[in-house]
């Protein structure tokens, strides 16, 4: 059952609450998300406010910042019935400079994906680094669009907790918090709809 509401904003607000709850429970209690309307009816951006804010991530490996942005579109099914879709997401993990180039970025852009043209996978990961074996020319991972599935924000947070040893605010209940969030999202957006 996708997110449905009597107005486009109502759908977006439900999703905003979901994302805010996940971030505030695990990484940053003060995270504030806003649904920002577009010039086109029923189009919105989900952003952290104040604009440009990133989620501070403290790890034994150092200080990092996670930026989280999504665009959303509410499809009008009939009068006072809207269904929400994620059109784009950008999750970017930055080093100590949140305004610098990200170390890792998970991206999804449904709009730019035209199967009839040569375009990279719409769900992909890019990162700061190079791959090389033997005498081959090193592969620049910043330029490659390594394909992924639809990455949930919960997966990125799980990665930070397990691989970056970030201490989640909700302590030992974090697996449950993330699992519930993922289950809710999968209920809203079955695989075929992503």
């Amino acid at each position, binding site marked *: 059952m996708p997110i449905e509401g009597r107005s486009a904003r109502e759908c977006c607000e439900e999703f905003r609450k979901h994302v805010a709850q996940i971030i505030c429970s695990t990484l940053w209690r003060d995270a504030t998300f806003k649904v920002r309307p577009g010039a086109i009816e*029923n189009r919105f*951006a989900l952003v952290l406010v104040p604009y440009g804010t990133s989620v501070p991530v403290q790890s034994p490996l150092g200080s990092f910042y996670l930026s989280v942005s999504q665009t959303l579109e509410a499809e009008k099914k009939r009068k006072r019935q809207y269904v929400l879709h994620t059109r784009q997401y950008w999750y970017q993990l930055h080093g100590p400079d949140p305004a610098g180039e990200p170390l890792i970025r998970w991206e999804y852009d449904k709009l730019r994906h035209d199967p009839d043209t040569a375009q990279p996978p719409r769900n992909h990961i890019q990162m700061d680094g190079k791959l090389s074996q033997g005498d081959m020319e090193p592969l620049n991972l910043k330029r490659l669009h390594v394909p992924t599935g639809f990455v949930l924000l919960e997966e990125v947070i799980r990665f930070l907790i397990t691989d970056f040893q970030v201490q989640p605010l909700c302590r030992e209940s974090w697996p449950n918090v993330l699992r519930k969030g993922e289950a809710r999202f999968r209920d809203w957006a079955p695989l075929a709809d992503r």
Partner: protein
Amino acid sequence: MIRFLQDLVDRFRRGDSSKPDSVPPQEIRDEIDELARRNGFSAEEALRRLEAGQLDGTPLEVALRMRLFLLGEDAPLSSALPTSGSTPSVAPSRRPSTTAL
């Protein structure tokens, strides 16, 4: 009726009771102009670089792509450009970011 009242209370608490569900396109174009300027480009140059993939991985890329979406996915780049005499209207960033959304 209870749900209606609860919605009103929720909206009031969010402080957006008077916010419309769309904004004038000019407001977004002005933001594109301001973002580009902060990064040392004209809006036209920033959008050209975006299309050429030269902004890949930069915070400016995300900020611009999001605004193009808010303007309309099929909006030609020229329509995203600010018109002369427009006033930039980007909210200040809390951190010293050059590409605050």
